[in-house]
């Protein structure tokens, strides 16, 4: 097994024993990257800079929990001096003059950023097909989508181009590609991780989280990025547990709820079978399985597409060609706005801006936006009630495995419905993780676990226990062919 196919905790062990040097880790990932270019995980890579930094670390003492670990960052997080594109033409030429808090935290722990990953434009999409720079391919089958919007962050880890990565999750954009690429992908509690420096899509839903090859790596990355940030008013000042320690506690007696609403129409039979099998495995570890109900589940997608697009329509207003990024020539300011925005945004982004503008506009606010905010309350309350009875809620991550490239691009609603299982966690602000629970037709299937606010530890604990029961997480997509 090449170094780049190992996990963070394995590499950390080797570094501690001085069996490898940071530069060797870096060379391994860089050489893998050369072989996997066609998957298009990255919008931009920094091989020379990353190698130079790794070589400097060779002779230095270990800096922190991620010393010498090559990481990839979704291209909607700012790094000073680097372009941040959000996979959009409209940010052409925008060089961030500051660094996102999460990235700074990784750097402080000694991680080395090797590149900015591909994504759906402004994180609006579920397949990484709306990127201005072209789509990313699924590492397990290059005819398939990798999921999205954090597709590139998923594939980079899956392919061994990075040892860990960060994505952002507004309606499933970490968990769903993690599921489709066979990784662990975790969306923390809203407020657990600072959003400062994350280019906003829907501010009340966005949250940054890690992609990792296994649960322990996810725990290490989560620990590194979590915590209060005075620059983000919505980040919460509460203690961050020792996740790797918490993770290893046994799950005997843990109550796991299975909501019936997640196993109705639309779910792929084999996906359902994998998830059901996972339930049995967890039960055999001593967990208590309970049937529960989340009655407002069917309203989640509608609620989400109102709340998210409303916020997006306002968040994306700033891309207007005046202060930075693309500007189309025009004789007056209104035309400048219209020409720039029309040329700079792709269809999906425009569609969502129009929808978001509609639901906020005069006369429609109460019928749509206010109604959705109320529906959000009901969805949140579903979860609060459920977590009075159970510790963890188990569902599939995605109703299907990865689909063919282009299959859903003409039908926005069909695409939106592929997020049906992941959206509720964002609306409720709760943490959720996707772990690999098997394969169907050579494509990974994801299991989603959700917990109460700030209880990432119990998620990691159940996910880790599940992982010990199988070896799906040890399979690697890259075969060298």
């Amino acid at each position: 097994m090449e170094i780049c196919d190992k996990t963070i905790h394995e590499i950390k062990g080797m570094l501690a024993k001085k069996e490898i040097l940071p530069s060797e880790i870096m060379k391994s990932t860089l050489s893998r990257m050369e072989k996997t270019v066609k998957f298009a995980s990255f919008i931009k890579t920094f091989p020379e800079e990353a190698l130079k930094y790794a070589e400097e670390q060779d002779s230095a003492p270990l800096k922190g929990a991620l010393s010498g670990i090559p990481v990839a960052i979704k291209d909607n997080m700012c790094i000073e001096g680097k372009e941040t594109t959000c996979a959009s033409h409209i940010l052409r030429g925008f060089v961030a003059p500051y660094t996102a808090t999460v990235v700074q935290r990784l750097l402080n722990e000694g991680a080395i950023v090797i590149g900015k990953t591909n994504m759906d434009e402004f994180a609006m999409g579920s397949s990484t097909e709306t990127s201005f720079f072209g789509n990313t391919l699924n590492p397990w089958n290059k005819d398939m989508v990798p999921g999205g919007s954090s597709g590139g962050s998923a594939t980079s880890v899956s392919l061994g181009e990075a040892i860990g990565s960060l994505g952002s999750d507004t309606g499933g954009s970490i968990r769903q590609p993690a599921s489709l690429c066979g990784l662990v992908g975790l969306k923390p509690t809203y407020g657990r991780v600072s959003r400062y420096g994350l280019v906003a899509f829907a501010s009340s839903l966005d949250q940054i989280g890690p992609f990792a090859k296994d649960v322990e790596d996810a725990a290490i990355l989560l620990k590194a990025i979590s915590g209060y940030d005075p620059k983000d008013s919505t980040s919460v000042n509460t203690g961050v547990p020792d996740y790797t320690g918490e993770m290893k506690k046994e799950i005997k007696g843990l109550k796991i709820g299975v909501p019936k609403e997640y196993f109705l129409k639309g779910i792929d039979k084999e996906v359902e079978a994998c998830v059901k099998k996972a339930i049995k495995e967890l039960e055999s570890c001593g967990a208590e399985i309970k049937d529960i109900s989340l009655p407002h589940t069917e309203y989640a997608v509608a609620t989400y597409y109102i709340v998210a697009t409303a916020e997006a329509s306002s968040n994306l207003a700033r891309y207007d060609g005046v202060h930075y990024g693309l500007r189309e020539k025009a004789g007056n300011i209104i035309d400048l706005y219209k020409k720039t925005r029309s040329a700079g945004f792709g269809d999906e982004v425009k569609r969502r801006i129009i929808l978001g503008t509609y639901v906020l506009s005069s006369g429609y606010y109460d019928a749509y936006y206010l109604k959705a905010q109320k529906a959000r309350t009901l969805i949140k309350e579903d979860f609060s009630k459920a977590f009075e009875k159970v510790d963890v809620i188990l569902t599939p991550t995605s109703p299907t495995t990865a689909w063919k490239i282009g299959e859903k691009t003409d039908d926005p609603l069909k695409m939106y419905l592929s997020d049906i299982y992941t959206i509720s966690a964002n609306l409720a602000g709760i943490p959720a993780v996707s772990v690999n629970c098997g394969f169907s037709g050579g494509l990974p299937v994801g299991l989603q676990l959700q917990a109460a606010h700030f209880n990432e530890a119990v998620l990691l604990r159940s996910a880790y226990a599940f992982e010990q029961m199988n070896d799906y997480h040890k399979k690697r997509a890259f075969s060298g062919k």
Partner: protein
Amino acid sequence: MEYEIVIGLEVHVQLNTLSKMFCGCSTKFGAEPNTQTCPVCLGLPGVLPVMNEEAIRLTVKTGLAFGCQVSNFCKFDRKNYYYPDLPKNYQISQYDKPLNAGGSVPIRIKGEKKVIKLTRIHLEEDAGKLVHNVCGGSGVDLNRTGLPLMEIVSEPDIQSPDEAYAYLTSLKQGLKYLGVSDCNMEEGSLRCDANISIRPKGVLQLGTKTEIKNLNSFANVKKSLEYEARRQEKALGDGGRIVQETRLWDAVNDKTVSMRSKEEAHDYRYFPEPDLVPVVLDDEYFRKVAGEIPEMPDVRYERFIAEYKLSEYDAGVMTSDRDLADFFEETSKQGVDPKKVANWIMGDFLKEINTAKVGICDVKVKSSDLASLIKLIDKGTISGKIAKDVFAEMFISGKQPEAVIREKGLIQISDEKAIEGVIEGVLKSNSKVVDDYRSGKKSAAGFIVGLVMKASKGKANPKLVNELLKKKLDEL
């Protein structure tokens, strides 16, 4: 037909904070363009706002002082519209849960007291500035972007341009007493838009209003409202109608002009700002802030009349500024006649301040020094006229009056012998005037007093001069 005027004013006031509303950039006026900006106020991708606690406190203080219902719960909303001075293309403002609702501003108009009701006072961020004709286009300067602003909205409760003027004056006075804003119109820290409509007397329904912008002084607010009322009256009188529109005040030609731009219907799409959490304040907080509110100018005005027996006019001037009122009170408490203090302040004190263009706080003359000066006049140590020179010197050097008098040898001559000597000298060399007096022209006496004072370099005690001269002339 007789019409009545209905006016409502929207006043934007920049709060006295060191840093901006949602980031740490300086609020100092006059910096080079775009040098007081950061990723947050520039609205760069990925940034987040964090509330300035002081801005909240100052707005609460204002609300409490003007009798508003200060909210226990308030939140911020986004007001969405496109303009190049607004880098995020939305303004963080307050929509349905403003910090302060209701309240009123007291005014005095032609000796009558009245209150102008307020609709609300909310907090928001300022936009930037557009500078025209830079490199063939417009230049955008974002130094002002994100400054904390209070928007003070009055009810359509103002019935004349004079009342509008009185309202603005009283509001400004109050805000300056509170120390919440500089209220400097030239630097843009106080801005005003006016809404005006007219309706036939006795009719309850409001007429169509126009909004006047570009008002850069209180005098122009008054003038523009006078103009606009006349214009609307003429339009209706001619059988026309009023178009609801924004009009600009053209201060050069003294008229309002229609903006004529194809103004689209505004649809600001307000919604709660997801990046900021609500502000929840309790009674203890309100009590603490209320404790910081000084006696407000209208209350002080009444008290000055009652306590110091000042005329309404004098009380008005004395309370026009908090520092001035403080100075007046401190001086008056040192055993001198408040009326004399007020006269000194309205006379030489304000004259010197205006000439030197300094603030009251920067004046070197202490209240105890002015009190001493007045006492020296009362005692007859110096004359009122000499006192003016003494004061001028005190104003420049900050010396005590006794020191100035000593150094310049200005002590009044009250020695009768000495004065008689001067009188004799004057009479001798002005025998013609003496003859006039004797031939019955009594006014000549005053002229002679003047000559005596001049000969004594103003130092002779005028009262003694009068007495002694009369005696002397009668003896002749």
